[in-house]
């Protein structure tokens, strides 16, 4: 499984990379939407994108809408990972095109369960890549 983590917090990226690597994911991490879009333009699509809501510049929600408006990303699972915990916010994210919604603080078990629900997460050798901010 290849996962792209789009999250501005280094601390949260470190946590997500550790959790995803533990379940066999090859993880690429970027800190904003612009870098994510550039990554998508020059790399094979990941098996899942994990998107934080609050990132500088284009928000995570706007990024999800942008991706879903492009048919190239129609089948790519997207999971919002956010501290926005209200049901209303969850519905907004799902309406924008997110497939799953993971509320911070989350447990390792919650991450694994969400991956299972999305049908991703079978073991592969772990690795991580950090893409410099554009």
């Amino acid at each position, binding site marked *: 499984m290849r996962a792209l983590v789009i999250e501005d917090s*280094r*601390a949260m990226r470190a946590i997500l990379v550790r959790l995803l690597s533990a379940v066999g994911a090859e993880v690429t991490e970027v800190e904003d939407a612009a870098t994510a879009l550039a990554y998508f333009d020059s790399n094979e699509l990941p098996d899942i994108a994990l998107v934080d809501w609050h990132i500088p510049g284009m928000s995570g929600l706007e990024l999800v809408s942008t991706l879903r408006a492009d048919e190239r990303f129609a089948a790519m699972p997207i999971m919002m990972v956010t501290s*926005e915990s209200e049901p209303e916010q969850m519905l907004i994210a799902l309406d924008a095109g997110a497939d799953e919604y993971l509320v911070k603080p989350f447990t390792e078990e919650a991450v694994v369960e969400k991956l299972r629900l999305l049908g991703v997460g079978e073991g592969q050798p772990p690795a991580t890549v950090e893409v410099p901010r554009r």
Partner: protein
Amino acid sequence: MTDVLFTEDLVTEIASSVWMAYLPESDELLARPAAPPEASLTGTVTISGQWNGVISLTCSTIAAARAASTMFAVDVSEVARSDSLDAVGELINIIGGSIKGVLPPPSGLSLPAVTDDATVYIDRRADAQLLVDVQFSWAEQSVRVAVWSKDDRTLL
């Protein structure tokens, strides 16, 4: 009155759940004061909407470094100041998000700001009313979570 939603029990429960999620192998976060720190880092987020206020997390620099050590999976001796700032920022972001979750929608959560400049921290709380101030002890280090209410969102 939204302010009555905020209790020490609520803040304690939220802070403890964040600690258990991201610092699971560390000491328990105990709801009792620790010795005042010689130096600390303070992270704040603002909530704007039907209720307006500031949520703050103040950690001793040692506690912040320990949190960063766990979150970045490095030895505490290798923790840089930027790591501690990021760790405190993420912790207050999640605490603030959880507190926002008990408020009536709609409301917005700011990006976190972290500083060791006490002047900045005091300026941000200017004209605010302290609603809850919970002092924790974490591995004998001081951790403090406070909720401040403001009537005028433009002051945030």
